[in-house]
């Protein structure tokens, strides 16, 4: 695959041309924060952002999506999104999260609704320029990314190094006015990436990510779950903002003819009250502390078992900022366990 | 014709809140004519005590769902007056734009859903749906535009959440304002259609006049047909009364037949509302609005209360034009994001605006922590209760020969023409039950 250099002006032209051919969702300011939104012009793009409010997962698993429609006779029809789009400015940790979700949604049972959007997407990732106040991707080994993207951009000051990760990316890059990246450009890129592997670390994990499953193996009855969950609101914010949370609810609703309607899927969260409630009001994980613990086990043990051991927290730090009582920070919890239980 | 009449309308319908009409006459001799309000009292002035200046708007907005934006603005103006808070020109213009949306929303609601059935001789708008589908859809469309307009600026259609003492929590984008402007432009056609439909049945508007004092606010600097800024004015004299002296205008008093407090200024009663604004500020209407008035034969000085609904039609025409101009003015300056800063202090202050159904006044007093110590409000329907009673007293003898049903019908129409907002008025009003 090609590695090119593209000047900032050429990049702006490239993006402005892309906008003419497809919907481009690029990172832009939203109030004092950042967010992916339809891009009207390259000049609105902010690739120096720290972190987006919601992770880009919503482009593949929308907050609400219609899975099926049914007609007045109860006949079902699948509903798919077929629009091609470009996602511009995905940070490495979010790219890793998307790679994880791809596995989850394509493994065992192939989720065409997710995968269709995924396959319709072109992802232009970019290395982090401004670390956010809670990022700890470096601790998780996810400060940089080597696969999944179609193009990866690295800002080297006088332009970008653009690496194609797929044929699609290659073809797209061919449309831009580029030069071959030279030794010096690549050195600059390497320097930035190496720095990021140190700098994206506002909360330092006291162990290797690969130690986490074993740590959790021994921590099921640890008092930290009860202690922290005492001030948990069960607000699910830690779930909602997380790029690797994917639990969902499914609901039917009727149209006004009271016969036809749709089946929709919406985001859900394992921290929420009622998540495990069945008919007759019995709730299996009714205890806050149990739900609180479940989330950490999913991130550090259960989901990794489905991902060849890769930890399912990418260190974006969103949950750290989203949790009002400040109990959701994975690093704080894991470090506490390291302190109390030691590493084997 | 039967000379015995017994009318006992228990809850007049298609008005906001609960009001009763009682008329009895034997052998053509009138024994009783009363306008009664049995609405449950709600005690807002007592309930706001102890709450922060920030929460006043949230509370008092709930006085009325239909004029929640006016209540919010009046409260916020009073709070700002008490705490000596200045707002920017941008905030001021955006507020006026939002305030217009409520006038428009409330007026279309009243004209289309509440009053129109009377003109068509229908009990409600529901049976009109199959008969006059297009007309109903036009009303719905205009009403939706008004609501989208409130939603954009106020955060919701009812009980706005963006307006806070000192400014806005959030403002629309320039693009959204442009779109709104286009939408309003398209709605102007619908307003004209509505005016034509109303005109086609205008002959059903009773011909009744009673020389009346009309009170509204008036803005002189610069002169403008106002809903938001200004001092209190009466058609009886040209003097302007600043809002801090509002008690001198309302002069609440108790009458024997009712414990409900009524208001009076230069005479026994006065009227507030669209017709009052029209009579006080006619010269400042846009040309198109004046033209609409002419079509209906509505002239400055009109003292037929039934024409209040027509004055609302005229105001709709005016509001759309004024809003389009205001958006241009806002956009030529460009929108900037402003930070609201409030320094809390003790103080007392009053605010006045025009609610869709007339002049609305709030007054609050705060301690040094911004905690509310006392509140006082004067609601437009409050001001109108006495005038409704006086109108009835003149009207009934004039039409008593038309028979019970016609009398009843015309009385209901009269009350509806005032577009009363009864639940608003009751937390201050002394309520009497005649059962």
């Amino acid at each position, binding site marked *: 695959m090609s590695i090119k250099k593209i000047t900032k002006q050429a990049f702006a032209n490239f993006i402005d041309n892309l906008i003419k051919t497809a919907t481009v969702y690029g990172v832009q300011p939203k109030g004092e924060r950042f967010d992916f939104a339809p891009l009207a012009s390259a000049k609105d793009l902010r690739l120096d952002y720290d972190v987006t409010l919601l992770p880009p997962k919503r482009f593949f698993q929308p907050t609400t999506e219609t899975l099926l429609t049914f007609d007045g006779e109860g006949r079902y029809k699948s509903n798919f999104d077929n629009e091609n789009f470009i996602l511009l400015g995905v940070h490495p940790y979010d790219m890793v999260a998307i790679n994880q979700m791809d596995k989850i949604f394509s493994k065992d049972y192939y*989720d065409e609704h997710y995968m269709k959007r995924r396959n319709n997407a072109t992802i232009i990732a970019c290395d982090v320029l401004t670390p956010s106040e809670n990022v700890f991707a470096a601790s998780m080994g996810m400060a940089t990314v080597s696969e999944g993207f179609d193009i990866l951009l690295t800002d080297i000051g006088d332009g970008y190094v653009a690496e194609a990760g797929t044929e699609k990316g290659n073809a797209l890059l061919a449309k831009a006015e580029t030069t071959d990246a030279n030794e010096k450009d690549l050195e600059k890129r390497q320097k930035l990436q190496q720095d990021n592997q140190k700098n994206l670390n506002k909360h330092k994990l006291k162990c290797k990510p690969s130690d986490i499953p074993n740590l959790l193996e021994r921590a099921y009855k640890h008092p930290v779950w009860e202690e922290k969950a005492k001030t948990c609101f069960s607000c699910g914010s830690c779930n909602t903002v997380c790029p690797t949370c994917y639990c*969902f609810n499914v609901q039917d609703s009727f149209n006004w003819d009271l016969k036809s309607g749709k089946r929709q899927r919406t985001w859900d969260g394992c921290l929420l009250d009622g998540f495990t409630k069945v008919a007759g009001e019995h709730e299996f994980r009714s205890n806050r502390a149990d739900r609180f613990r479940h989330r950490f086990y999913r991130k550090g043990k259960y989901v990794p078992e489905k991902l060849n051991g890769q930890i399912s927290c990418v260190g974006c730090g969103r949950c750290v900022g989203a949790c009002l009582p400040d109990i959701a920070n994975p690093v704080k919890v894991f470090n506490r366990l390291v302190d109390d239980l030691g590493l084997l | 014709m039967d000379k015995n009449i017994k009318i006992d309308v228990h809850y007049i319908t298609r008005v906001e809140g609960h009001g009763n009409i009682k008329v009895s006459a034997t052998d053509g001799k009138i024994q009783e004519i009363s306008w009664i309000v049995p609405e449950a009292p709600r005690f807002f002035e007592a309930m706001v005590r102890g709450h922060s200046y920030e929460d006043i708007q949230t509370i008092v907005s709930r006085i009325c769902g239909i004029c929640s934006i006016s209540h919010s603005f009046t409260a916020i103006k009073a709070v700002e007056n008490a705490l000596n808070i200045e707002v920017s020109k941008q905030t001021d213009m955006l507020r006026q734009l939002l305030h217009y949306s409520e006038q428009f929303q409330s007026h279309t609601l009243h004209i289309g859903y509440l009053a129109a059935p009377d003109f068509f001789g229908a009990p409600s708008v529901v049976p009109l749906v199959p008969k006059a589908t297009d007309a109903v859809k036009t009303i719905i469309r205009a009403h939706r535009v008004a609501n989208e307009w409130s939603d954009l600026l106020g955060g919701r259609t009812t009980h706005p959440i963006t307006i806070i003492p000192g400014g806005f929590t959030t403002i629309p984008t320039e693009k959204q304002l442009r779109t709104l402007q286009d939408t309003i432009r398209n709605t102007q056609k619908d307003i004209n259609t509505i005016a034509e439909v109303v005109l086609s049945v205008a002959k059903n508007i009773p011909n009744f006049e009673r020389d009346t004092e009309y009170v509204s606010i008036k803005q002189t600097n610069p002169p403008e047909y106002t809903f938001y800024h200004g001092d209190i004015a009466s058609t009886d004299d040209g003097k302007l009364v600043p809002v801090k002296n509002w008690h001198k205008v309302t002069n609440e008093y108790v009458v024997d037949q009712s414990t409900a407090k009524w208001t009076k200024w230069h005479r026994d009663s006065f009227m507030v509302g669209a017709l009052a604004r029209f009579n006080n500020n006619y010269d400042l209407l846009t040309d198109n609005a004046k033209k609409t008035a002419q079509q209906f034969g509505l002239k400055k000085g009109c003292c037929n209360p039934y024409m209040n609904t027509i004055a609302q039609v005229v105001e709709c025409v005016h509001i759309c034009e004024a809003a389009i101009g205001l958006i241009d003015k806002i956009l030529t300056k460009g929108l900037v994001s402003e930070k609201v800063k409030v320094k809390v202090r003790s103080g007392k202050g009053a605010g006045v605006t025009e609610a869709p159904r007339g002049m609305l006044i709030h007054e609050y007093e705060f301690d040094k922590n911004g905690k509310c110590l006392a509140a006082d409000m004067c609601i437009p329907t409050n001001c109108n209760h006495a005038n409704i009673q006086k109108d009835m007293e003149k009207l009934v003898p004039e039409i008593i020969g038309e028979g019970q049903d016609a009398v009843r019908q015309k009385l209901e129409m009269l009350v509806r023409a005032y577009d009363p907002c009864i639940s608003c008025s009751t937390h201050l009003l002394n309520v009497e039950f005649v059962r």
Partner: protein
Amino acid sequence: MGQSCCSSMKRDIYLPRPATVKKSRMMNGTELYIHIEMDEEPLDFLPGQFVEVSIAGFGEAPITISSSPTRKDGFELVVRKTGNVTNAIHKLKGGDKLGIRGPLGNGAYPVEQTKGKDLVFICGGIGLVPQRSFINYALDKRADYGKISILLGTKCRDQRFFHSEIANWKTRSDVTFMETIDQADNCWLDDVGVVTTLIPKIDYDFSKSIFLVCGPPVMYKFVLLSLKKENVPPENIYVNLERKMKCGVGKCGHCQINDKYVCIDGPVFRYSDLASVPEAI
């Protein structure tokens, strides 16, 4: 990344397939028996698997197949009325259409591994419903299995069902059928009779028999304790678990019990596999 992969040939895992109700009848005050046939390909299932039943507008509910795949005309469900979907299912009559997804559940009954072994089915109330699939399967392939016992505990008489089938089991010499009924006046739907009292009554080699347990959540604790007392190795016990479920295909997260998913790892679990799953029982 498999972005270039062409997925259009795959079936939408959330799309129900059309099916028709052949028959439905109430079995007692709360349970509806319903016989269903797929409109297109027939359902190819194993005992213990379940389907997601779709009633348009009301949603989906996971329901275990109660009939045995050895009986080839369609499949049978028994549904208790508890909420939106099950209420709507109760309104279905012969000829009505509905949607079916499945069969689902990789953890079906161990019909192959248990060949030649003695089987003990311990059922609490409605727990008989899923067990019935394996019971009838084993009875239809009677020669493949050793002794077969069925222990059933029901809270009160009105809640019994499958009367004629049970009567038949009772008369068969190659089946041991035992039943308790706890006839308390105040009859709660979710309670079981004291099925545990029946366990010591069977004269099998407990260390070699296979125990299949299904009933309401409260039952498991007691039954498993009894089996432990009898020194039954956990490898020989199978339990049927139930959790809230939305997708049935291991994605939505609702039925997860620690690291296990009821839908794709169960609903039938080998008890020994649940040693590290504290949330299970």
